């Protein structure tokens, strides 16, 4: 059961039960919907971008512990960052959850590292990345909902 605790660790469960920045952002400059057709998870990501900086970010939706916690942790991680930094954070995060541990770069991802155990669960990786894909879609102002498929 040890590896289970690694996945469902306290920070994940905490962010699942009490998701941060869980609201509609009224003055959002960017917004996108995300959908994981495999499990039916749906998410809305709202952004307020000013001068190339993500001033504010929020999300709403219904999903599993991994997708909800990942979205919540993401909002904390990206708020106040420049768009280039957000992009590079996404790439590092994506590597962490998709690539073998040895290949992971030695970048400190802070609280986001709570999601590292997801790499052992190939069918759940999309749960962890849905909010990030939706964030990207919002930045790119895509009309179509972001999808994990």
């Amino acid at each position, binding site marked *: *059961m040890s*590896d*289970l*605790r690694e*996945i*469902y660790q306290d920070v994940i*469960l905490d962010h699942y039960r009490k998701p941060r920045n869980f609201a509609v952002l009224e003055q959002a400059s960017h917004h996108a919907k995300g959908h994981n057709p*495999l*499990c*039916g*998870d*749906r998410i809305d990501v709202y952004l307020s971008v000013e001068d190339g900086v993500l001033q504010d970010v929020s999300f709403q939706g*219904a*999903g*599993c*512990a*991994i997708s909800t916690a990942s979205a919540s942790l993401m909002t904390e991680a990206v708020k106040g960052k420049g768009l280039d930094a957000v992009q590079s954070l996404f790439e590092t995060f994506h590597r962490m959850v998709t690539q073998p541990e040895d290949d992971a770069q030695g970048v400190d991802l802070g609280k986001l590292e709570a999601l590292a155990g997801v790499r052992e*669960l190939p069918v*759940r990786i999309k*749960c962890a990345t849905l909010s990030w894909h939706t964030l990207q879609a919002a930045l790119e102002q895509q009309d179509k909902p972001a999808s994990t498929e």
Partner: protein
Amino acid sequence: MSRSSTIRKSPMGQSLGDSPTLDVEAVRREFPALSQTIHGHPLVYLDNAASAQKPQPVIDRVAKAYAEDYSNVHRGVHSLSQRATDAYESARETARGFLGAARVEEALFVRGTTEGINLVAQGFLRPQLAPGDEIVISTMEHHSNIVPWQMVCQQTGARLKVAPIDDRGDLDLGALEDLLGERTRMLALVHISNALGTINPVHDIVAMARKRGIPTLFDGAQAAPHCALDVAALGCDFYTLSGHKLFGPTGIGVLYGRYELLEAMEPYQGGGDMIRSVTFESTEYNVPPHKFEAGTPHIVGAIGLAAAMDYVTNLGFEAIAAHEADLLDYATQRLQAIPQVRLIGTAEHKAAVISFLVEGVHAHDVGTILDHQGIAVRAGHHCAQPIMDFFGVAATARASFAFYNTRQEADRLADGILKILEIFD
């Protein structure tokens, strides 16, 4: 489950009074996949409604067919082709007997239930549909009994009518009957619901349809592993099943069709084996069932499916039904004793399928944590999104039992759910 399903006497000839029993431990030893461990725990396989494990006799029969008796069918004059043809056509006779069809030509080999339904939608229904005609299904259908009809509606201007279910997951028979009208050209329903376990009263439904001259099709994917079939006594026009849910190979299934209808139908696909003669000006089609089996069929799949049908028939559906009813009762009690568990689908007549929600925990987390305890369940919408919408949930976890499951495994499931609650506490 006997009252509302198509039950005939057990092939072993036992009467109900003898209460036939299964030697479950002996049966389990015949399924090699069941003896493995997952994440260090003995596997508890409760995803049978998605696909069932295979017994050694089926695995051996498939291996023998490839190793000793393999060639193409209906073509060669040589001995191997003859042996393969004999085995393939003998498999058809087994399928006829399993379904209770009157004629062997009424058993068509298809890829599975999905292809069976598509074949009927395109080959039988499409040529006779006019704009405004109606096809009746129900809320509890699998996507495979929704989408093929939607497609034929788009092609012809026909309309899809959906009979409602109640909050236990029972079909509203009154509402269904009200939907059957002058323009109804097909009534297509699931026999046993994959997501809810509901066993539909197919005899009553056929009576309703026949009174009005409406053709009927049943999706028997979930029924075939659990109850004896007798399509002739049932009087339906089409009935289709999948081999892989019946402990047989993937990619093979059977469509039963009433001979008169098959004879009048257009072919589903064109190619070899489905023709009598071909010139560039015209082609004369073969007779059923060959008219519907274009190209080289899944020869060994059919042979393996026949072995699976023999295997299940030898166990006896009375014994299977009695064991599964006990498992359903026991597992239902264990799960209902957990206050945070909500069952989705509590029909009066149910197969051993339990869809459930764990309060505060998403179905996918339920699935992942159970898997780490060696317990395989399905988590998701079960290819039945309209049912999920009806119950207002995005996904459920589903434990579906087969005759090789045990009460101890139901205990493991209940204990596994308690473990989830511990983690999420």
